[in-house]
């Protein structure tokens, strides 16, 4: 199968949380008991029960009162995953990459509990989490079973506005270029696609990266 990519156009996201909840539903992940701590973002961070999280960041803005950025975050499925590189030093192929590029945490990661923190820190975005339920490393698995069957990952399927796209590399990169050009036109030249050479989850943003998510 051709390599698969996500393309996330944050300019279309309304933070409806469809992606976050669809992921929970498909993976039958339990809900956490959360508290309202003064933001729409909940749970506060990715964890063993939450593979995709919509982040909300608010900043002052001259033009329209505030800028409110939404960032649907999950594993980037790196082309050269730092988590795998680190984990392989301890237990080879506990983390694997499949034929369409999904970075998967296998059952063998059960033996990596002691190294969990190091593996998490290896990731530029601190994505790896520990599942208390399954007692292993866990994160977004690109709905690999669905994709292998010719379906979309559920997050992408749930998205109503075309913010969260998924498909073959060529298709997604073409879409990314089109949307980047449109964004630059609309937002006075601003717009970039992050980490184009390194990851399979391409994010289009129109402001500094740190304004969308806390920098690791």
């Amino acid at each position, binding site marked *: 199968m051709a390599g698969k990519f996500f393309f996330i156009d944050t300019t279309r996201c*309304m*933070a409806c949380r469809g992606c976050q909840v669809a992921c929970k539903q498909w993976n039958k992940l339990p809900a956490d008991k959360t508290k309202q701590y*003064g933001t*729409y973002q909940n749970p506060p961070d990715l964890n063993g029960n939450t593979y995709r999280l919509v982040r909300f960041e608010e900043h002052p803005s001259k033009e*329209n009162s505030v800028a409110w950025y939404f960032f649907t975050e999950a594993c980037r499925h790196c082309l050269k995953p730092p988590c795998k590189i680190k984990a392989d030093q301890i237990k080879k192929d506990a983390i694997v990459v499949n034929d369409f590029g999904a970075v998967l945490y296998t059952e063998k990661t059960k033996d990596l509990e002691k190294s969990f923190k190091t593996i998490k820190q290896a990731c530029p975005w601190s994505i790896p989490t520990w599942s208390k339920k399954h007692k292993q490393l866990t994160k977004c698995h690109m709905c690999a079973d669905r994709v292998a069957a010719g379906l979309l990952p559920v997050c992408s399927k749930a998205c109503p506005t075309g913010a969260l796209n998924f498909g073959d590399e060529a298709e997604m990169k073409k879409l990314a270029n089109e949307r980047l050009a449109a964004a630059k036109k609309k937002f006075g030249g601003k717009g970039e696609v992050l980490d184009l050479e390194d990851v399979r989850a391409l994010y289009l943003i129109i402001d500094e990266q740190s304004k969308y998510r806390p920098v690791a």
Partner: protein
Amino acid sequence: MTNHWIDIRNSDCILIMGSNAAENHPISMKWVGKATENGATLISVDPRFTRTSSKADIYAPMRSGTDIAFLGGMMNYILTNKKYHKEYAANYTNASFILGPKYDFKDGLFAGFDPKKKKYDKSVWAFERDKNGIPKRDLTLKDPRCVFQLMKKHYARYTPEKVSAITGTPVKDLKRVWGPYAKTGAVDKTGTVMYAMGWTQHTVGVQNIRMMAMIQLILGNMGRPGGGVNALRGESNVQGSTDHCLLFHIWPGYLGTPKASLPTLAAYNKKNTPKTNDPLSANWWQHKPKYMASFLKSMFGQAATAKNDFGYSWMPKLDDGVAYSWLDLFDEMYKGTIKGFFAWGQNPACSGANANKTRKAFANLDWMVNVNLFDNETASFWKGPGMNPEEIKTEVFFLPCATSVEKEGSITNSGRWSQWRYQAAKPPRGCKPDGQIMVELFEKIRKLYKAGGAYPEPILNMRWDFVKNGKYDAHAVAKLINGYFEKDTTVKGKSFKKGTLVPSFAYLKDDGSTSSANWLYCHSYTEKGNMAARRSKKDPTGMGLYPEWSWCWPVNRRIIYNRASVDLNGKPWSKNKNILEYKNGKWVGDVPDGGWPPMVNEAKTRRPFIMKPDGVGSVFGPGRVDGPFPEHYEPIECPIEKNLMSGTYTNPVAPIYATDADVYKTCDPRFPFVATTYRVSEHWQTGVLSRWQPWLLETMPQLFVELSKELAKLRGINNGEMCKVSSARGEVEAVAMVTGRFKPMMVAGQTIHQIGLPWCFGWVHPEDGGDSANLLTPSTGDPNTRIPETKAFMVNLEKSGKRR
């Protein structure tokens, strides 16, 4: 909606005001997105910067409850800068009509106001008519007594500076909105408005919408693709419920419920059937007697005959001058006059304004039946906060029901599209579809009435031939809604056999030979089949009409008033806005709003607004109880001492209630902040369904109150801290969400603070979730619809020192 969801993509300028569409109608943003992809401008006007605002090109803040000031200023801008479509306004609206000598307006009051009765004599707002009863017109729109000139005079008072002082919107932001929107007056551009409860839930709710309708009419946006006035309905099938008259004042198909002073069908028809002498006016409501008779035949079947007025006397009537709306219902319940209550698929303990009054009112009932999916604050009211179960005698019955996906039937969306749904899953054991519950209840009630009862005729005579073996059948009901020929008959030269389905409401008769439980839906389930179940993606015009995907009323016309989208020759005002065109002697495109030829054919044509007696759109609206032109009044609870626009402080005919539970405090230093209520994407209405859903509750676990950084500083409140929000009626504990999305506003020279809360929480579950924001809201509302004013009221906010 006059238009429909997909049509939004055809717009050049989308104003989302009185709505947070991205929040509450997220799928609609798909169509908004397609419009903006093609260069459309998205404008969000809201007291708070919302998820919708985050996607808008232009955002303007506005004090809650000042929409008429904002829009009146827009009207003034349009008129002053001549951005209106003059030919459209002159020919298709009543802008050219001359007003009678009695019409006047002074200091916030229209002529005809009786201060003792607190009521207007609407006859004072009548048009000048010629000896044939046809309204006099000045098509040049110059006559000082014509609607256009009087409107100009009325809104000349809404200067940018005055509007800014009332709304708190800086003048530059007013112009940032008015400018782009007014551009849609050009023929090759159309603008649309997406609105919802932010406009309706005010004492001036109807006038808010009237104001926008007037703007759309003079800009020439009505009946056109990407135009119209689009209400985003708050539930997936509330359009269906209003179509089928789940409101006290209407029978299905928007027939007015008869008043007690009209003892016969003839008297009703005489009073309620509009007349016109204008040969160019279709005056479609002239057919009302056919729809009334057909409705009664659907109610009483064989028992309904011409001799007994088709059973008219068996239908309940409204006492003259009495309102039976939600607010009135709970007022009577609170006073102890109502003893039994079906709370069917609702949670009034959390959804109605002044929730404390509602909860206390329940304790006066002898019995309550709650039909719902989960336990809720209504069914369990008797063990709620402040309630002593030992003192409450109400017997509560809980009937668990099926969800929408567990039963078959139709849902009518905001765009009037009736879409048939199949049963996707079986309901859990013991849960029944609402229709089945109704069938079983009614059959038992009827059995009891066979042995006596106060007035058995209506119950025993009710038509029941569509129910077989005690089983509810959605198809059988849908067919009766469409209607049948009740005997062999010939209509319009065609012969029909008894028991066959009527093809459309054009074939309904007033002589008892036809039945139709809702004339608007006559055409939806015919001998051709269940039109609502169609799923064809054909789109011949390419404008997104999809005429064979489901079915819409009336007669599958997708854009209402579409004959206003063409000029007098039947050609679209602009080639790029073509959903209907008169070509070679016939209409091509959408179902035309009447098949008559274009206006140039004076012998055979009809004016495009066929539901109005004069055939034109109402720029001047003489039918509303609070005035023919919208006028800014302050909400019943507001932050300033005077109405800057006139000497009339609030809507002079807004309903106010007088029990000890009805307390209103305006401009009171104890309640210094403007509050509003709203929804969130993650919860559904009162949360009665969604709070029990762990994945949703995880995203929004507890009641919060959004406030500005400046107000937080003023009150020493930190983000995430527990607060108490209180009004004259009640209080709630909420977590502070300090945000830049609310900002202080300059109103009438004072700094005004606004706060907001979602109303999706209730004490039943989760225990630490918080209670309903409607404990704060006031029992007052719009005088036309009596929808409560839950969007603008006054509160206090302070730290509570408690833990979350």
